[in-house]
């Protein structure tokens, strides 16, 4: 198991048996494991998942059970994901806010 990253919010408490998966968040290369959700993989790398749209603050999800919708992230193609219920997939390219329409 990897040492927790200094800015990570979540800590992996038990080993992973699954394959290591590579993904990109806001242009930065990160990795997680098969079996992890997008939320877990992101928060084991960094402190937040999305930019709040009404003020310059960050969010990291809240309920972790598909109810609060505070952990939305976006794929670079504009697809929206609920991070707490979406399995991490190899090669995902994720954003913390919706991409501008001209880039989709």
């Amino acid at each position, binding site marked *: 198991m990897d040492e*927790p990253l200094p800015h990570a*919010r*979540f*800590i*992996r*408490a*038990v*080993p*992973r*048996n*699954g394959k290591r998966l590579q993904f990109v968040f806001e242009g930065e290369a990160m990795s997680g*494991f*098969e*079996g*992890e*959700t997008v939320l*877990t993989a992101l*928060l*084991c790398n960094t*402190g*937040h998942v999305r930019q*709040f749209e*009404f*003020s310059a*603050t*960050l*969010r*990291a*999800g*809240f*309920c*972790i*059970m*598909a*109810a*609060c*919708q*505070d952990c*939305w992230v976006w794929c670079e193609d504009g697809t*929206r994901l609920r991070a*707490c*219920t979406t*399995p991490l997939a190899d090669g995902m390219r994720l954003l913390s806010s919706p991409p501008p329409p001209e880039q989709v």
Partner: protein
Amino acid sequence: MKAIVVGGGPAGLRAAMTLAQHGLEPVLLDEAARPGGQGYRSPAPGIALDIAALMGSQKAKYERLHRQFEAARDTIDYRERTSVWAIDGHTLFIERNGHTNVLTFDSLIVASGATDRIVPLPGWTVPGVFSLGGAQIALKDQGALIGRRVAFLGSSPLLALAAKQYQATGATVAGVFDTAPFYAKIRAVPHLLHAPHTALRGLSYLAQLRMSGVPLHFGIEPVRIEGCDRVETLVLRDRTGREMHIDCDAVALGYGLKPETQLAELAGASFAFDKSFRMWLPVIDADGRAGPDLYLAGDGAAIGGADAAEASGTLAALALLADTGHTVAQSQIDRLRASIKRLRRFQRGLATAFAWPHRDAGALPGETIVCRCENVSAGDIRAALGVGLIPPELNRVKAITRCGMGRCQGRMCGPALQEIVAAQSGAPVATVGRLRTQAPIKPIALSAAEMPR
């Protein structure tokens, strides 16, 4: 005869198994990736978590439910990752992998479970604050901790359980901070004796935490969570009014559970205000009947815990079977009714022991964000009521302030909104109304909402 069960927790699993045992071929729709619901959630494949060790005294029940469901799986049309986002008459609108579809039913059992009931506090939107149930799911499903040094805040027997699970898996527990005074727990003893084993288990968690040096505080008042992009300090006041500053990087927040009643409402259930829980609950008979062809079970009908969920799932299925001309054993019905009555009475005791702090919720400081979706503060809500243009009714307040209009549809802010409106207007809480449910009950992409073919 087409029976559909919604929800893959203990109530839904038992309901589906019971229908299958009587020769029906039920469809079981589960929003989650694997059966078990929230409380009996199993680790995702690849996560090497010893779930049996984590479940402790609940290990046997957890394993029995999962084992029996696996054995029955061939007789049940189980569909994981499938959400129901609307109900119209006898038609369910479902979404799976970004595609919608419809399913019709003759009889419906809704076992939609519960979420944490939340009292906001200043700073609760800072990254690192999670619901108490969420903190447990991060651990059970993902083998992950929400932080290195975690504070447990609220009013719930699950605070001590989660703290113990976190401690056992390597987290430092910064403290367990319960807003209910200890004497409230003593006062609840007569109710708690309806399930003495459960009550003793709760006490033993507290004793184990205390012995390991974890700070336990009762009757505290939450003040704020400090930190900009990450939680740094939890500030509380103790019973003497002294401020405590708790160094932590995560907070698990929970004030008991709140039924997910949206589907029941869309399916036609009526609601009544329950004074002990201070919430609107769907009206059901002793077996879970909520309307024609509609049955409710588990925590989504009435907070009762996992044992009551299993029993009420079985009972709702037996009621459905009896109503549709199947032969069922009356002795089994009688036994289940008695058991559910006892377990739900115990939950009423818990509602006293771990009181919902409605006065604190009604008196939240003006700057507190109440609606985390739409960024609406307690002050915004009071200002809207102060203008006098709207009656103190939750749906009107929602229309003016947008509190409860965001993506969670008031799941997180609704209970606090109710108390703020009641306190500000001086109206009895039962008269300020109930946030109405709108379909879709969870956001779905427009691209998914194309007319099914």
